[in-house]
Every structure is written in structure tokens, then in C-alpha cells.
């Protein structure tokens, strides 16, 4: 890793008014400012997760014609703190059948990678404070793919060590899901890296300000990345790992109290993380709107970028939450089919199209887009043609045609 470059970038990001002792590197190259930033980040993640959970319950409530949390604090705003406090004071059970060493370790292995990935996110600038990014690695993209993948190990540990068949099934599902969806995700990221010609997330955001947002240049890539991350964090409709109606709670069945709270925390932190990554990689990071720099409004983003970043992130979080309450759950084989037969080819198409854009310019790219759309239309048409006529219509016609049988058909009583 290019340590020098990294620390240089960190120093660049640090505002000039900060006293020297804060930014002087100490043990392991970490400065005091870094440590403060870590603590602030942790606090931010924890608080954002609490707000997110409250938000999800409110969203769920209003989608489902009800109110959601209402009486605990004004509009239920103290609901999440109450939940956390309760989980903290809950008895921490370790089942007899559970592995005494692995079982308590698993929650940390699930939460810590998610938290670590927050380190590379370029949050954007805010007046006086400069650009918020804790570690602008040059290999940020690789880091953000590699670290969350460790989550899988934690989940397998949780599932295996619980000594419960439901959790075993759940962890088996998690592994299959993680392995399948890692691939389309990485392929989608290749397009991003190619466009920015860099693996540094800050550079990627800045390149989007010049070239246009990636979501418009490679919409297929955005779709693939978004769906793949949604699946990686086991959110509905891809939540087969925790499928409550089938395997009760997946790998977390036997966890109680704050240990289970860690999993819950990790799940919602992952939603936050992946929304932030999607924002940084595809939605132009902290830019207000595409092309604002050309209109001379770049200073708004430069001053208040953090707020725009957060705004975009929250919109994505809301979309993820919306999907949970709008869709049924996929089955495991359909989930695998979706990854390997749809997302992966789509990722490759996006990769090729982006390559065409980078090498040959915009006109061949436009032709490529057109060809892809035409191909997709043909595929869709054949799919529709292959499908049997709508059963809804069949039932309706049958209902109209049904005649009363004269006498019973002799059903056994």
C-alpha cells in the first residue's frame, strides 16, 4: 500500500486551522485527529443506525396503513434508544449446544468489517472542516470490496456455532449468496474504476464531477451494483438468509440480547454503508446536481457537499426500505439464477460498454447502448412469448364458463 500517498492525502484533507499536535502521526501512523475521527465515525454510525431503524419502522407503518412507533417519545423518536437500552440489559444466553468460543466471537466479526469499510468513504466537504474522509486509500475500491466480504465468515461462524439447524441452513444460504453476488458487484465496479482511471474513491467522485455521474453513463452498472449490494446485506427481497417465515431467523436464531443487537446493527450499518458507496461511486458523491460545475455552482458543493452526500444516501436508504415492504422474497435457486444469469451478464455488458466509451468515444458508446437496449427488448419479448397465457385471465374465463354440476361428484365424506 502506498503509505506515503495516503498520509499526504490525509494531510491535504485536514483543514489548515488544526493544531500540529493533532495531525502529527503517532503510533502506527495514526494521528490524534485520526483517532478522534474514528470515534466520531463510530458515534455517527451508531446514531445513524438508530435513526435508520426508526425511519424504517415509520416507513413500514405508513406503507402498511398504520402509524409505526408513536408513543415512545414524540412520534416514537425514542423507540430505537429504548430498544438499544433494553437489548443491553437483556440476559445474554449461550445455548448448551453452542460452541463457547466461536459463538460469542461471531457478532464482532460481522459488525467490525462493516464499520471498517466506512473508513474509505469520501463524505464530502463542509465549511471550515474540509473534506471528510478518514483514509483516502489509493486502493480504496479494492478495500471496500475485500473488507465487507469478511462478514461472510462471521455469519458462517454464527450459524455453525449456534448448534441449531435453522441457523445452519441460514449460514449455508449466506455463503451461497455472498459468493454469488460478490462477482457481479466487482464487475460493476470495474466500469467505475475504468471511467475514473483510479481506485481512489475521492478521485472517483471528483472524476464524476468532470465527466458526469456514473449513474447516467453506466446505468446498468448502477443497477447491478445496487441489487448486488442489496443482496449482500440480506435485505428483502433477497433476505433468504434470515427468512423469518421459513428458517425463523437464519444464523441469528440463537442469539439474544446485545449479541443479537450487533447483528441487527451490522445489518442496518450495511444498508447505510452501501447507500453511501452507491452515492460515492455512481451518484456523483457530494455534487449537488450533475453539471453544476459547468454552471458555476461548484462552490455550493465545495462548501456544503456533506449535506448533499447525506441527502442522496438517505434517499437510497429509503428506496431499500421501500423494497422490503413492497416485494415478496425470492427462493434460493431463483436468487442464484438472478445473480448468475442476469446480474453477471449485465455486469459484463456494462463493462464492455464502458470500455467502448473510454476507448472509442461517445458515438460508438451510444450505438452500443442502443444495441443493448434492442437486445434486451428482444429477450424480453421472447420471454413474454414463452410464458403461458396469464392465469388470471384463465381463471376469469373459467369462472364465467363453469356450469353447475347436476349432482355432487361423489366426494368421500
Amino acid at each position, binding site marked *: 500500500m502506498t503509505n506515503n500517498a495516503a498520509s499526504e492525502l490525509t494531510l491535504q484533507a485536514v483543514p489548515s486551522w488544526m493544531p500540529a499536535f493533532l495531525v502529527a502521526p503517532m503510533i502506527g501512523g495514526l494521528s490524534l485527529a485520526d483517532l478522534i475521527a474514528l470515534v466520531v465515525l463510530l458515534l455517527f454510525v451508531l446514531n445513524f443506525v438508530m435513526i435508520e431503524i426508526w425511519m424504517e419502522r415509520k416507513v413500514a*407503518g*405508513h406503507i402498511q*396503513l*398504520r402509524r409505526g412507533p*408513536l408513543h415512545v417519545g414524540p412520534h416514537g423518536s425514542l423507540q430505537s434508544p429504548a430498544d438499544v437500552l433494553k437489548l443491553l440489559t437483556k440476559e445474554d444466553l449461550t445455548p448448551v449446544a453452542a460452541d463457547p468460543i466461536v459463538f460469542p466471537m461471531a457478532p464482532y466479526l460481522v459488525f467490525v468489517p462493516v464499520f471498517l469499510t466506512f473508513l474509505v468513504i469520501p463524505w464530502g466537504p463542509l465549511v471550515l472542516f474540509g473534506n471528510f474522509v478518514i483514509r483516502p486509500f489509493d486502493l480504496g475500491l479494492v478495500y471496500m470490496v475485500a473488507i465487507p466480504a469478511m462478514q461472510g465468515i462471521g455469519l458462517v461462524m454464527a450459524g455453525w456455532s449456534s448448534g441449531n439447524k435453522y441457523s445452519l441452513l441460514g449460514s449455508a444460504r449466506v455463503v451461497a449468496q455472498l459468493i454469488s453476488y460478490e462477482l457481479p458487484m466487482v464487475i460493476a465496479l470495474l466500469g467505475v474504476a475504468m471511467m475514473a482511471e483510479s481506485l481512489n474513491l475521492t478521485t472517483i467522485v471528483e472524476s464524476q464531477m468532470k465527466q458526469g455521474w456514473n449513474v447516467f453513463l453506466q446505468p446498468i452498472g448502477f443497477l447491478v451494483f445496487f441489487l448486488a449490494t442489496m443482496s449482500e446485506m440480506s435485505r428483502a427481497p433477497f433476505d433468504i438468509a434470515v427468512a423469518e417465515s421459513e428458517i425463523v431467523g437464519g444464523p441469528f436464531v440463537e442469539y439474544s440480547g446485545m449479541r443479537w443487537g450487533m447483528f441487527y446493527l451490522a445489518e442496518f450499518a450495511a444498508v447505510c454503508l452501501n447507500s453511501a458507496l452507491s452515492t460515492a461511486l455512481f451518484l456523483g458523491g457530494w455534487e449537488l446536481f450533475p453539471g453544476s460545475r459547468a454552471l458555476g455552482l461548484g462552490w455550493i458543493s465545495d462548501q456544503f457537499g456533506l449535506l448533499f452526500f447525506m441527502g442522496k444516501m438517505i434517499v437510497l436508504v429509503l428506496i431499500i426500505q*421501500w423494497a422490503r415492504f*413492497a*416485494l415478496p422474497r425470492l427462493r434460493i435457486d431463483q436468487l442464484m439464477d438472478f445473480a448468475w444469469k442476469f446480474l453477471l451478464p449485465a455486469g459484463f455488458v456494462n463493462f464492455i460498454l464502458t470500455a467502448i466509451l473510454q476507448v472509442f468515444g461517445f458515438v460508438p458508446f451510444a450505438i452500443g447502448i442502443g444495441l443493448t437496449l434492442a437486445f434486451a427488448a428482444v429477450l*424480453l419479448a421472447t420471454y413474454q412469448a414463452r410464458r403461458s397465457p396469464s392465469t388470471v385471465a384463465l381463471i376469469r374465463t373459467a369462472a364465467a364458463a363453469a356450469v353447475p354440476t347436476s349432482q355432487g361428484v361423489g366426494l368421500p365424506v
Partner: protein
Amino acid sequence: MRGVLGGFLQTLKSFLTKPVTRLYPYEKPPLEARFMGAPSLLWDDAVDEVVCVACNICARSCPDDCITLTGDKYTDGKTNKKNIIKDYFIDLGRCSYCGICVEVCPFDANEMSPHFELSTYDRMTLVYDKDQLIEIGRGVTRRTGKPEPVGPLPGILDPSTYR
């Protein structure tokens, strides 16, 4: 794709509609006139005593056997009844709130009250005694629209059932 989008649109529609939730502790449920809460004993305001004559038909008709009553000789002479209840217990924990006791009562001495908030820490408090049953029946009037007795009532009004 169309179906998935339809699901999204439908949820968006319901997100924007008004919730149907009734905020219970702050809003009362609109109890219907016929709502059958706990059974209660009616009080005859005209003669200032309980209507019941301790005929035991309700107790015998109760599908859950949750009514227990004992009668006493009636000596006040305010009405022409022969007996009056001494004790009357209904185990509201066991009661199935079917209204049969009200239906069979030949003297219109009881009625289903709208009292439904029957949560206790101790299930023995769900056994309501005479005073409590009169208390929850206060303000309750015998409902109109009861089926008029049609034809003779064989067996039920047998004097041997009086105690």
C-alpha cells in the same frame, strides 16, 4: 417487471393514504349497541333491588359453567318474587361471551355490558361477584329488538327449576 413496479406503486399509494389506525388508549373503540362484553346483572330502579330471582336457568344454560349462584327466600315484599339471589359469581376468565345467559333469562335480569377491559394481574379477580356484576351493569338497559318468545316454552318454566 410490470408486477414488481405495480407492487412499488401500490405501496407508494398506501404510503400516501391516511393510516387507518385507531389510537386506542386515547381514542375509544366505537362499540356497537349489541356488543357483548362481560355479562352483568340488572338493577331494578323502580323497587331498588336486583331483578334476578335466582332461577338458575342462566347457570344451567351456560356452556362454560362459569356462573354460580345461590338463592335466598325473598321476604321484602316489594315485588311478588319468591326468591332473590344471595351470591352470584361469574368467572369472566372462563366466560365465552356468547350471550346465551341473557337469551334464556325469562325475567330479563341480566344483559351483556360493554365492559371489555378485563386485564388483571391475578386471575381470581376475574371472578366477579354480585356487586361487581351490578356495578358493570349500571347504565346498561335491556336491549330492544330481542326476539319475542314464540309459542310455549316447554320445560324451561318448570316450577321445579326455581329454588
